[in-house]
């Protein structure tokens, strides 16, 4: 083991207040050289805030930071970079209209002198970028524009960007939230290599199984307070959960399988250029149907086509036996279809607007049939959902941008619960959500199914999709290549289909 026991980073009594919330209340943290230190806590516990203070994005209100036992002042991102602190942010910070190399080397482009004029050395920049991507096994063209990338690819670019300069301490804020198994494996390999080089990693994730796989020690935060630090090897997951949420979580997946009702959604021969090829499936009332596959298998595309955002080349969609003639999101909502998109910041929320405005956005006509807004009613409804879903926000007027990642996701959920849609598509609903809240969301999905709603669930988390669904369709390269009933679920088999090596046994 390469862990030396010297403390490379020490945070002491860090305090940070935002209007209405004490995000951090005298939090301390010690990180050793070459260790993977996991930061654990519920949504809104203050993890991202602590890390943003460390890398100079926020100014702390109190406390001290020591690196190599010397107190340091961090007054901006540049200071943190000089101290060898790198970060992979929870939210993407990439420029959409620039290519990958330009993003990775932003502000630190290789330079050369032409006739005494200092210019960017483009050929070196793209060459270095290619080398970096290759070393991380990222198969994306360095000239591709960021706006054309999927979420997982954007995440890999963020990782590459953080690794493009020499770092001593690397912060990873939920790096795996948008990745699938394949890429996660790559990432873990990278982490192991960095560790071997003596780099310390602060790792934030809501996927508890990852802690056992890569973590050395864990520090738990709750409501902005320091709860404790433990060694991974002598702590059970249950104990961690208890430290984190302050209670025990009994059973994560509690599914009551209902009697299946009428056919709610039927899709026939759906084709969208090369992304979806001849996809047909059905979802009944009271049923939760899972879509499993690798990133890029076409699951999100199917969801968005059903919702009318993409225009299919071929195929038809039937809602309760009636063929939809016009396919647009407006029509979909009218036909009582709802979509919780996977990219909440770009597609699920208007983050400049308040929590209450976001919650009612998809139900305006239902809530205000006269067309006139009523502040009181809007407030009352949003308060109800804030309470029901435990959204951590001081009030309903807070701008969504200032909520923690997981709580933003809950706002999207509230928005679609309010529409009372018959058919609800959940695209990665628990991404970035803490265990406590996950359990709540699973319960809500189960409730919805009990009420006879038809649910389509896209998830890259095999445990969750197997624990919750009645049936699973496995997609591979735009096609549905297998279908499983929950009596016949078999993890290996499902995964082998998803990676294109599937064969049905028995």
């Amino acid at each position: 083991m390469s862990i030396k026991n010297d403390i490379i980073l020490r945070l002491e009594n860090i305090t940070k207040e935002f209007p209405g919330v004490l995000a951090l209340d005298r939090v301390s943290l010690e990180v050793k050289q070459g260790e993977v230190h996991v930061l654990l806590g519920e949504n809104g516990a203050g993890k991202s805030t602590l890390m943003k203070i460390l890398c100079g994005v926020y100014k702390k209100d109190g406390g001290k930071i020591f690196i190599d036992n010397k107190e340091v002042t961090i007054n901006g991102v540049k200071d943190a970079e000089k101290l060898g602190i790198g970060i992979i942010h929870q939210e993407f910070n990439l420029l959409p209209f620039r290519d990958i190399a330009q993003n990775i080397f932003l502000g630190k482009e290789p330079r050369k002198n032409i006739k005494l004029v200092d210019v960017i050395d483009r050929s070196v920049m793209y060459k270095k970028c290619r080398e970096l991507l290759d070393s991380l096994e990222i198969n994306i063209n360095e000239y591709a524009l960021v706006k054309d990338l999927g979420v997982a690819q954007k995440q890999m670019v963020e990782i590459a960007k953080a690794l493009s300069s020499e770092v001593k301490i690397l912060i990873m804020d939920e790096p795996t939230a948008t990745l699938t198994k394949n890429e996660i494996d790559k990432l873990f390999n990278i982490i192991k290599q960095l560790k071997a080089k003596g780099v310390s990693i602060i790792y934030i994730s809501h996927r508890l199984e990852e802690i056992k796989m890569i973590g050395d020690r864990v520090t738990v935060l709750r409501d902005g307070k320091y709860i404790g630090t433990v060694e991974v090897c002598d702590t059970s997951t249950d104990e961690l959960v208890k430290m984190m949420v302050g209670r025990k979580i009994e059973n994560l997946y509690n599914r009551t399988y209902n009697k299946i009702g009428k056919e709610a959604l039927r899709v026939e021969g759906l084709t969208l250029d090369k992304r979806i090829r001849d996809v047909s499936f059905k979802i009944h009332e009271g049923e939760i149907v899972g879509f499993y596959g690798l990133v890029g298998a076409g699951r999100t595309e199917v969801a968005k086509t059903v919702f009318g955002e993409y225009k299919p080349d071929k195929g038809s969609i039937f809602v309760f036996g009636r063929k939809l003639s016009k396919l647009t999101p407006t029509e979909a909502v009218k036909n009582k279809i709802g979509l919780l998109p996977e990219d909440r910041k770009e597609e699920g929320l208007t983050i400049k607007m308040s929590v209450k405005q976001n919650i009612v956005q998809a139900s305006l006509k239902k809530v205000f049939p006269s067309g006139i807004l009523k502040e009181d009613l809007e407030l009352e409804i949003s308060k109800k959902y804030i309470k029901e879903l435990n959204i951590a926000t001081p009030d309903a007027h807070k701008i969504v941008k200032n909520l923690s990642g997981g709580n933003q996701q809950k706002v999207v959920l509230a928005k679609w619960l309010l529409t009372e849609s018959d058919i609800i598509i959940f695209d990665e609903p628990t991404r970035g959500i803490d265990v406590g809240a996950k359990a709540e969301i699973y319960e809500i999905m189960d409730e919805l199914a009990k009420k006879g709603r038809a649910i389509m669930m896209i998830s890259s988390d095999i445990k969750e999709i197997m624990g919750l669904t009645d049936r699973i369709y496995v997609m591979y390269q735009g096609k549905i290549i297998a279908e499983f009933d929950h009596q016949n679920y078999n993890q290996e088999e499902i995964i082998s289909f998803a990676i294109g090596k599937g064969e049905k046994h028995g």
Partner: protein
Amino acid sequence: MASNNIKLLIKYARFFILILLFSGFSLLSPHFLTFPNQVNILAQAALLSMVSYGMTLAIVTGGIDLSMGSVLALSSCIAASFLKSGNIIDGILIGLIIGLLCGSINGLSITKIGLSPFIATYGMDWVARGLAYVYMGGTQIYGFSAVFRFLGSGQFLGVPALIYEMAIMTIVLVFITYKTIYGRNIYATGSNKTATRLSGVNTDKIIISIYSINGLLSAIVGLLYISRLNAAEAVIGTDFTLNSIAATLIGGTPFSGGEGGVAQTFIGAVIMTLLTNGMNILGISSYWQNAVVGFVILFSLFIEKTGKVFNRNRLEMVPKSK
């Protein structure tokens, strides 16, 4: 916290500017505070503010409308010939229809063809102005009936009709933008079009309607304007487009979309008019006037930016003292 006071100061900065201008001009010139001059300022602000409301709506949705001045000219020129020959109602209706038509063409080319608002309305600006020249052939139409003239230059209870019209327009638009579903959807579209569309809102329809309203507003202001001038010609209204952008920015509606609004723009339009009026009274040359307006625009953008700094609580945005 100290930053709270600063935030408050920034929020009401425009009222301070208003009060400052007001007291400054009052001290400098005895004419400024007289009732006729005050009424005159409001009447002058009326036309500008109504055009600016349209500009504000376009900017709130994340766009811009560079064609307003020319659409104003085209619709009022064509209306003028009907006003002269036929009856008033025909003339007004034709003016409004032409405005609406130009506006909806803008909206359609932005949403259905996918032109950027800047390009689409810039093109319309040339087309409408060109057509106005062709239609008028270098002539002027003047001398309208007394009834039509009342709309733009009449008085009721000692107050110009324009002020009533502006008041009604302001109230209606404030109500629509802040109190209705339609208004909410305008702001949502401006903040995040994709997310709004994925909430089931037909964002194309919202955008087309906004530019159509702008066409209509241009036509209305055009009619009031020729009624006030008692003449119509192809060159009128050239200043309106840029002035309305200025009023919107001074009022505090940012180009990024989804924020600001009609009420702020009213303040912006009054500040603009006060400035020009006060400087006219003081006999300051019009070259200097332009420079001063420019300075005020930059100053408002500066407060806007500083306001953001304090809102974000982010270190990087704070001006470096090092």
